[in-house]
């Protein structure tokens, strides 16, 4: 199964929910898709096509949060990235995919913690990385994160934004 086969299969099944397909190299493609349809896409790609879920990258852009769901097909060395755009900056929310593949368990926890993106129906979104006294509602990997104030020697004493 080459990249074209995978893209054709996606195009056939989800014609209306795909906005753009961008091939950056013969083995890598980015597919802009409808964020509301993410679970159906992932079921099709993981269960039907048998791609390996690689990771989810969150990117803070001007238009909102981009979530890139990376999938790999090892037999032909293809990497496919689904791009879901969440325009709502105050409460970005998307459906969880942990019901489909367990591999997303920690990934969603991490993104929730560092970007403040909510995963609907994901029950395990506890703190994974940040200290216990980290202030609520401060997400360090967002672009509007204000680093904590530093004293004259470059030390900070409080976590999160000053």
């Amino acid at each position, binding site marked *: 199964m080459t990249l074209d086969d995978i893209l054709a299969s996606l195009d056939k099944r989800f014609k209306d929910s795909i906005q753009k397909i961008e091939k*950056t*190299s013969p*083995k*890598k493609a*980015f597919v802009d898709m409808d964020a509301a349809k993410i679970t159906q896409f992932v079921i099709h790609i993981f269960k039907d096509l048998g791609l*390996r*879920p*690689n*990771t989810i*990258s*969150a*990117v*803070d852009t001007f238009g909102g949060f981009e979530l*890139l769901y*990376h999938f*790999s097909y*090892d*037999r032909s*060395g293809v*990497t496919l*990235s689904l791009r879901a755009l969440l325009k709502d900056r105050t409460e970005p929310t998307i459906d969880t995919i942990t019901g489909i*593949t*367990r*591999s997303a*368990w*920690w*990934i969603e926890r*991490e993104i929730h913690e*560092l970007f403040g993106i909510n995963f609907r129906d994901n029950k395990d979104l506890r*703190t*994974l*990385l*940040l*200290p*216990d006294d980290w202030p609520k509602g401060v997400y*360090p*990997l967002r672009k509007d*994160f204000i680093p904590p104030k530093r004293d004259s020697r470059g030390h900070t004493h409080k976590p999160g934004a000053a």
Partner: protein
Amino acid sequence: MSHKATIPIGPYHPLQEEPEFYKLVVEGERVVDVDVRIGYNHRGIEKISEGKSFDQAIFAVERICGICSGSHPIACVQAIEEIAKVEIPERALFIRSIIQELERLHSHMLWLGLAGHFLGYNTIFMWGWKYREPICDIMETVTGNRQNYGIMKVGGVRRDIEKEHVPYILSRLDEFTKQLDMLKGAILDDPVLHARLKGVGILTKEKAIDYAALGPTARASGVDIDARRDYPYAAYPRVKWNVITQKEGDVFAKTVVRILEMYESVNIIRQCLDKMPQGPIDAKVKDVPPGEGIGQIEAPRGECFHYIKSDGTNSPMRHKIRAPTFMNFATFRETVIGETVSDATIILAAIDPCYCCTERMVVVNSKDRELYKGPDLIKLSQEKTRLIKEKMQRL
């Protein structure tokens, strides 16, 4: 009557080289649940990298993890090279492969040593660490440092392997292989280790796929993946080697995979040194245009994934790093449940966890009853090995 008790392990615990906190919920001898709290190692490298230039980011990612300090930079430069569309000179590709394989050798050897320690085989621990020294020496000769090599660069490598170094590398590799043969015999032919490791912590193929396990953890369960073959990079397509897989999925299979992989690595290094062409070692890269790049490479623990988004400035706009342990770790919960407490340590060690890479885990709840104190867990594991040994001697 079921009585559940919680064993808190960590964050500072002799079992672990790095700080992390585990809560093992046990019912008698059986583990029924496990929860992990990491974060003792979280340094926010992804954010730091966004503030560095592309050249500096490579040094930043090198300090994600000391053991993978050759793998993360390769993944990072590959992602940048994909955006900038650079052709890398042949010689540089071979040097990259050599560095990666040397790293795999010392990482697997280090793992063997630690696994031996958890099982009460301190001789294996000492051997493992002694026999990885030739590799550290080669690294020091070639790159100038025992760890944190600083050799990767966008467009090539920073230092060349001198002609004079080749015989030295080969002679040290011979020395290493001889010791590896001995160690392999000592581990794989030992009936006690067979009794101790076979059938322990089995990860089935289906589960490995569901959890998207990577590297030796997946290959020991029969999932035939290896980024070196599937996503050809560096000089791997130019040399002949095999991907090692096992079917059982238990701790023993993981050990076998790692030991046999070391032989493949030695093989790759020898071929690379032999076939390495002359020529420049780096291509000039002027600037990095806006775009997205993905770097996938096979680190000693599994596939390492870097995603870089550039907006045309000289620093990455987003740098996502997914280390192999992040995916492998979730399998630990799956494999440890139902096993005995004395096996928990070796099952955890079998995935070769690296929290520095994962950089992410609960405060000791004093209300929970403490069954075992910290170091008791290693003792328990070592005790079990001793009992099996005695039993075998009696037979």
